[in-house]
């Protein structure tokens, strides 16, 4: 990690997540280069919130993100499909029963 930072004058790559308003999740806004987290945070503020797009920012080193791919998404997410009983609509409730 440190080696790539030193050798690459562009600095490390960071992913930026911005929370637009209180109470809602942070959303991926883009990425940027910076030597360290603090600089990444400042750069993220300058680049991704110039027009009040957010009230909170997370920066995460891109290299630590582990992502699924859409190619294996079929088999990867498949187990969910045969578990219909996870959904409330799976259960029949007799007429007249309320608040269920």
């Amino acid at each position, binding site marked *: 990690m*440190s080696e790539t*930072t*030193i050798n*690459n*004058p*562009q*600095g490390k*790559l960071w992913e930026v997540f911005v929370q637009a308003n209180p109470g809602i999740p942070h959303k991926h806004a*883009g*990425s*940027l*280069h910076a*030597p*360290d987290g603090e*600089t990444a945070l400042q750069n993220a503020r*300058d*680049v991704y919130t*110039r*027009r009040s797009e957010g009230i909170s920012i997370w920066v995460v080193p891109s290299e630590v993100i582990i*992502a*699924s*791919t*859409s*190619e294996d998404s079929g088999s990867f997410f498949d187990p969910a499909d045969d578990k219909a009983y996870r959904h409330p609509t799976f259960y029949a409730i007799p007429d007249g029963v309320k608040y269920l």
Partner: protein
Amino acid sequence: MEEAQKLENFQARIDKGLKIEPKDWMPEKYRKQLIRMISQHAHSEIVGMLPEGNWITRAPSLRRKAILLAKVQDEAGHGLYLYSAAETLGIDRGELLEQLYSGKAKYSSIFNYPSLTWADIGAIGWLVDGAAIMNQTMLAKGSYGPYSRAMVRICKEESFHNRQGYEIMLTLANGTTEQKEMAQDAFNRWWWPSVMMLGPSDADSTNSDELMRWKVKLESNDSIRQRFIDRTVPQADFLGLTVPDKDLKFNEKTGHYEHGPINWDEFFNVIKGNGPCNKERLEARTKADRNGLWVREAANAYAEKQRIKTKAEEKQA
């Protein structure tokens, strides 16, 4: 999976209007074409800062100076969004920049024209950003997720650029005779380069079919150009400026303006590096990069030092 099957799935995703994401399989040609397009676009944003940066110190009022500064800052941001999008395709930003400096990568022909007067700043915002919006609105609907998302952000910001430019032109057009002449002069010089910046005519455009099928492009250069002209001519009429095209006429039947012949020799000549400012632009850009290198190196060294220090403290504790 067989290559042919992968290609079929890829095309099916695109036909369904789904975006292609960085980790998805994609044809090598798609990847290469996108890297070329996105980096060209990114280079255009940061080289585009130069003709405007030229006027920051000489903007006629504090209001205009603040606006121009904000606009140039936006362009830097646009460059960054785009370099980031290109990097998702597996190429390093440093490498992309080296391609720019070595002349291997191109940027928009338009930024090789000089900004001679204050009216040029108006003309650039109105015409150059206006033409860019036409192109970028199309690109925002493209099939590659990171590029398309960058375009959505950029389009939102370009609208400010476009309007501030028109406002400058409006002020000059309603000003003294000298100011009006200045506006007309800038219009005369920026009109054709803006018309041309939307790319070669469809007849001369190579490999467009595949790009359209892959939704890298969704519309032809000539069709975007037509929309730009149709929308801009009435704006010029309102300013009381004359479009520098004696053959320009409105076709009542089609509802479109018909323009005179475009000087494509000039366009290709500028692309080749023989425009009025090609050398100057590249020199300025390279110099800025080289002069800033020690700052980036120092920042990296400092970050490394902090990291080691934190680690040592953690061990002690």
